[in-house]
């Protein structure tokens, strides 16, 4: 797929299994929307093979559209219609729609069912958006950046709705640039950068995450030097620790239990408090930043 001289995506090789939530992650301009719009049948591609539900979206017809649901990046609905009316309107487009009342309940909009779309909050509007994609009872749902621009509580609510799609047995293709979103929702993640896929796998294992070093950080009390630390800890610092700033110590280790034990026993024996003590596995975000840099 290319625009003039610019190739937007190339050599993407993806397979999404039925009934899984698949997250397609990448920075802005990485080619996420281009890819998803090819899959949705909105865009023509220059080459390659694509099959969605066994059909090439470029020549898929109404029958195929009965089986998919689409949520675009912006919320798009008729502002003058209420939640219930919008869903009734869309339900009429499908041969075997889901019940409108049930769909409203599924996205948690019971309290706003008779409110016009124009008066909904951002989070509610997004839930209506998902409901509109669900009311035709599709097998496959495309969600393009479903929570971009949301406040944290609206994001949580949207996540709950998306997670519930798994229980309905739907296949979900989700694009996002939030790693925590992929981590919270997806069974599998692919990271796209500059139009190519750089990593793919379960969120827990992506980029060798499960076998990477754990980071431990803490603050030394005044007057205590790194040289006073027990041998196991000092060794871990020596092997790849960042320099201590304002007595802040951060170290990485592949044996977090042994190092922590040495550190905390040492601190307890001296009656010291270690401020800001934190143990962290590399997050998906760390992996992502490393891969996209």
């Amino acid at each position, binding site marked *: 797929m290319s625009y003039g001289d610019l190739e937007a995506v190339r050599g993407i090789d993806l397979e999404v299994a039925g009934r899984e939530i698949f997250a397609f992650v990448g920075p802005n301009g990485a080619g996420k929307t281009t890819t998803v719009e090819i899959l*949705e*049948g*909105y865009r023509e591609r220059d080459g390659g093979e694509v099959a969605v539900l066994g059909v090439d979206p470029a020549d898929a017809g*109404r*029958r195929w*559209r*009965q089986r*998919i649901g*689409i949520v*675009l990046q*912006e919320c*798009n*609905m*008729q502002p*003058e*219609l209420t939640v219930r*009316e919008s869903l*009734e*309107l*869309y339900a*009429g*487009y*499908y*041969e075997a729609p889901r019940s409108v009342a049930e769909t409203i309940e599924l996205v948690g909009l019971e309290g706003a069912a008779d409110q*016009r779309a124009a008066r909904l909050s951002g989070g509610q509007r997004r839930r209506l958006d998902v409901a*509109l994609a669900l009311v*035709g009872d599709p097998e496959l749902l495309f969600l393009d950046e479903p929570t971009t621009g949301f406040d944290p509580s609206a994001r949580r609510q949207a996540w709950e709705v998306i997670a519930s799609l798994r229980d309905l047995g739907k296949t979900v293709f989700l694009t996002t640039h939030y790693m925590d979103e992929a981590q919270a929702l997806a069974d599998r993640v692919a990271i796209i950068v500059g139009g190519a896929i750089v990593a793919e796998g379960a969120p827990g294992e992506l980029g060798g995450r499960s076998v990477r070093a754990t980071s431990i950080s803490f603050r030394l009390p005044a007057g205590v030097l790194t040289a006073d630390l027990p041998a196991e800890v000092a060794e871990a610092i020596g092997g790849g620790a960042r320099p201590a700033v304002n007595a802040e110590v951060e170290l990485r280790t592949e044996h977090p239990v042994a190092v922590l034990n040495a550190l905390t026993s040492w601190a307890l024996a001296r009656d010291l408090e270690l401020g800001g003590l934190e143990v962290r596995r590399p997050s998906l975000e760390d992996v992502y930043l490393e891969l996209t840099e």
Partner: protein
Amino acid sequence: MTGIALVLHQFRYDQRVFWRNPASVFFTVMFPVMFLVLLGVIVHGQTIHTKGGIDATTYFVPAVITLAVVSATMVNLAMSLTILREGGVLKRLRGTPLPSWVFIAGRIGNALVTALLMFVLVTALGRLLFGVPIPWSRLVSLVITLAVGSASFCALGVAMTTIIPSREAAPAITNLIVFPLYFLSGVFIPEGEIPSGALHVADAFPIRHLFDALLAGFDPATGGAGFELGQLAVVAAWGVFGFVVALRRFRWEPRI
């Protein structure tokens, strides 16, 4: 649902959307009614010296109907379809199994029904408020004129969306096109007071021809059934032009 049932389904919701939108109700319904009342009060009892002299209120009833029909069809479709396109609503609809022709048919049905309603409303108000006689003997030709005019201006409205780049530009561009034509076509100012050069300019466009055909229907001096085939042919030709442009260039996705 079959095609026709689906059109009716779409139409029902489009009607609700129309009547709940303050801008569309004001410009399509309130504005022409207000105009009729104001003009009627101002010119009541006067004679307009055109077509051998015609009672001024009788002149302005078909003028306001012209305004209302163009608003209900061309202006309404050009604005609402552009807003839906730029808001991504049309793109989203393309992702559903709804056939595109059904959606457009529903919207056009909505415009036609509104235009017919305005014809009835303005004619009735003209009779009730100013005693303008209802031309029963020429009703058939009037309804045909209304049908040809509404359909043609619907096609032009869909075509107009192709030259409107954004939501914000929609009211400016549509009003820039229709308002000068209303003035030049004698809709706001009696024909006799417009220089003939200006009338010639208006003659190239469909608004004046729709107005002339409707005026012939309301003018008691018109003989026979009141068919104005020449005028209708010009309106229909513009309609065909609009249809071809719409068919070739109508877009479902936002420009930006």
